[in-house]
């Protein structure tokens, strides 16, 4: 799939509202954008899609003046613009609502104050600000936008969707020509998201041009006139209405080399049985059986509810609904400590935030969750800890000066080898790895994969990744999640790029087939 029709340079006569021409952006040695060209026509809603790290955020930042592009031109209404600061973009009629809602509102201020934040912050306002004037002005804004917000409430008393509504209303009140919505539903519940869509549809009726960034196919399908897919810093496809979600999903995933490097093992007896679990309170119940002697892969786009489901199994968050059992015995972990005592352990998604202790040596990291194995009547057996760490370093080829080195001295891949390797020293009832291959090199990935294959001969393992290629590489059986539901189950060897794209492209109502060969 290649770039669509819009490769011709935009002339002043072009009808485009925004035209990107050969935009590149480099951060040090990283090329985040590698020649992006596309147009947004006035009044249309364009969906911008792509996997994590595809360059979506970077592209938006060049348009909103946060990161000026390294090269290339941004043409707005036929005029070349050089955005150096966010205020430049704002003056050109571009308003951005960033992904994290709470970056867009100021806690401790009322809704009225948040609506008029720009006015309050700029020199337009007088030195003394009277509360009554603010509320009056806010009421004017509200009437103009036909909204009904609790102006005198504190912003933190509003639900997430309410705060988002305020953030969007503030941007709309500046009469933008283009509104950028960066993953606006990522922190909203389904019902809140529905309210947002109604608001967006209202903006569309008023003729506001919208650039809508999302991971969700169904959202894009519902709201967008056109979709543009970004991969590895380049536009890989453009899609016109009616949007073909299978083609879009395939384009996001890219040329998958879906060849499992191993025979899919059938799996032995069921060790863990999960019945009626829910990723989110209002999502459908799902059931999973986890067997000895296999690696179960879990994949799906970001936001599909994978982590939320796994964290409930591992005691990181309380069980929303349903039951869990280990070898037939009821299992309901109170917390992580309880889950680990019962033999369930997780390698969390965010390595630096959830697994690493700053300035602490490798040997302390390798035994942190295994204090019982490395202590006698409460006293840590330091020599045994260091010997164990040396074993992990050797067995998993961790490139490190030694067990006394601090963890920050290692590269991401080597950190991960240690953090995964330490758990494989003993058999768990269940080992869960959430995005174990994120940000690590191919060598480390291959090594961890083969170590997991070997370990899983005896013990059950779940590997979760939003990159299906990673799942197919390591797993025997794959589950695919769409909108918090497990919609497909198959031997990973049977999965092809086409089926994956089709499954992820369609909503969850479209199919619920769990074909296990």
């Amino acid at each position, binding site marked *: 799939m290649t770039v669509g029709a819009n490769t011709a340079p935009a002339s002043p006569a072009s009808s485009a509202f925004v035209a990107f021409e050969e935009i590149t952006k480099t951060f040090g040695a990283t090329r985040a954008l590698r020649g992006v060209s596309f147009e947004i026509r006035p009044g249309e809603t364009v969906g911008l899609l792509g996997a994590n790290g595809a360059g979506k955020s970077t592209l938006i930042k060049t348009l909103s003046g946060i990161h000026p592009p390294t090269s290339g031109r941004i043409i707005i209404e036929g005029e070349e613009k050089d955005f150096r600061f966010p205020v430049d973009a704002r003056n050109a009629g571009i308003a951005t609502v960033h992904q994290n809602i709470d970056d867009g509102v100021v806690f401790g201020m009322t809704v009225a104050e948040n609506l008029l934040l720009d006015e309050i912050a700029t020199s337009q306002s007088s030195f003394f600000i009277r509360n009554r004037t603010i509320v009056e002005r806010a009421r004017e804004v509200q009437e103009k936008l036909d909204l009904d917000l609790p102006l005198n409430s504190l912003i933190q008393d509003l639900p997430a969707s309410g705060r988002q509504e305020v953030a969007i209303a503030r941007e709309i009140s500046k009469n933008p020509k283009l509104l950028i919505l960066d993953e606006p539903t990522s922190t909203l519940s389904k019902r809140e998201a529905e309210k947002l869509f109604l608001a967006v549809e209202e903006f569309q009726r008023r003729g506001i041009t919208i650039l809508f960034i999302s991971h969700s196919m169904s959202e894009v399908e519902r709201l967008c006139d056109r979709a543009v897919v970004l991969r590895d810093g380049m536009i890989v496809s453009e899609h016109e209405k009616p949007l073909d979600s299978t083609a879009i999903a395939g384009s996001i995933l890219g040329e998958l080399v879906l060849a499992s490097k191993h025979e899919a093992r059938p799996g032995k007896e069921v060790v863990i049985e999960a019945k009626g679990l829910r990723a989110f309170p209002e999502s459908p119940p799902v059931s999973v059986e986890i067997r000895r002697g296999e690696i179960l892969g879990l994949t799906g786009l970001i936001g599909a509810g994978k982590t939320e489901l796994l964290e409930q199994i591992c005691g990181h968050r309380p069980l929303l609904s349903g039951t869990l059992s280990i070898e037939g015995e009821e299992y309901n972990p109170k917390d*992580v*400590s309880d889950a680990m005592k019962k033999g369930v352990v997780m390698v969390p998604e965010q390595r630096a935030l959830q697994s690493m*202790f700053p*300035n602490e040596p490798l040997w302390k990291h390798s035994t*942190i969750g295994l204090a019982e194995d490395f202590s006698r009547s409460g*006293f*840590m057996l330091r020599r045994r800890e260091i010997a164990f760490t040396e074993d992990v370093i050797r067995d998993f080829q961790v490139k*490190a000066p030694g067990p006394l080195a601090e963890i*920050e001295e290692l*590269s991401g891949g080597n950190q991960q080898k240690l953090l995964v390797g330490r758990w494989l020293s003993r058999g768990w009832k269940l080992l869960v790895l959430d995005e174990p291959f994120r940000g690590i090199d191919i060598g480390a990935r291959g090594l961890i994969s083969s170590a997991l294959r070997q370990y899983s001969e005896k013990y059950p393992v779940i590997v979760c990744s939003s990159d299906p290629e990673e799942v197919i590489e390591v797993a025997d059986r794959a589950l695919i999640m769409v909108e918090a539901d497990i919609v497909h189950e198959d031997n990973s060897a049977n999965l092809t790029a086409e089926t994956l794209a089709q499954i992820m492209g369609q909503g969850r109502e479209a199919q619920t087939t769990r074909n296990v060969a």
Partner: protein
Amino acid sequence: MGTTALKAPKRSGIEATKQFVYRYGLLAVLGLMIVYFTVTQPFFGTFINAMFILQAASIVAVVGLGCTVSMTVGGFDLSVGAAMSLSIMAAAAAMVVGEFSGTVAILIGMCAGLAVGVLNSILIVYARIPDLVATLSSLFLINGLTLMGVGGQSVAKGMVINGERTQGEFTPLFKWIGSGDVFSVPASVVIAATVFILVTVLLNFTRWGRAFYAVGGNPVAAAAAGIRVARYRIAAYLISGGLASIAGMMLAARSNRGDVNVGDPFLLQAVSAALVGYAVLGANKPNAFGTLIGAVFVAALINGLTMFNFPYYAQSFVQGVLLVVALLMSYTLGPSRR
């Protein structure tokens, strides 16, 4: 980054000196200072004077070790001085007014310190109030409560309550804490040494100590590794309050009376000792040995300077210089973070 770590450490002379100063600088200064005072002031180096110094350091060391424990979990206990004052008053009143034995008085005093720890835990762990703010409010609460409890007056033998003279007095056991000795080592030094050993063992050699540091280093990762973060934070504040109460009784036994708010100045002294301790052996984190050195350093410095007729009113300044030097060592010479 990973590959640079593998290269043989080929450091320049300046880098090596920096490393040496970072690790041993403070101990070297302490050693030189002791040598200098010993040579110039014959009395400084005597056993008796050494005991004076250690006795002066003992109370600060005990409170400081409590602060150290609360700092390992990433907390900060501003209420240690108030906890000291409360347990002094509780123990003194138990003996003077209640005419209890010394053992009971000590137990009552310790319970008072632990109660402060419980209050802090409730505010911090359950009510989720930030450590500094929570312990600041308990500082005022406890100090106020102590004053109201004794009607604003000192508790001493023969004090008058409601027109009646009290009959109780400080018992011999209690007095021993302040003036007794073991093989001519003052009892307070023995107590401080015992506390030091216990805290060192707890923090450095047990799984619980490992958990304390893990909670302080990264509470999210600690929880993900199966550590019950809330329990360790509660334990840390209980230890902090408990050690403050022990220090309080050491102080009360020395003066044989319970004066109002005598614990207050020990808060800043103890915190400063714990912070100076960051620079000892390049630890760059709260540690028991460092805190002990921090307490002894100040005591030795002031003891020596007094022999040179250094004015007492300049002591704060000297302590400030020491703290700044120690902090400069940990923050400017420490390994640079990426």
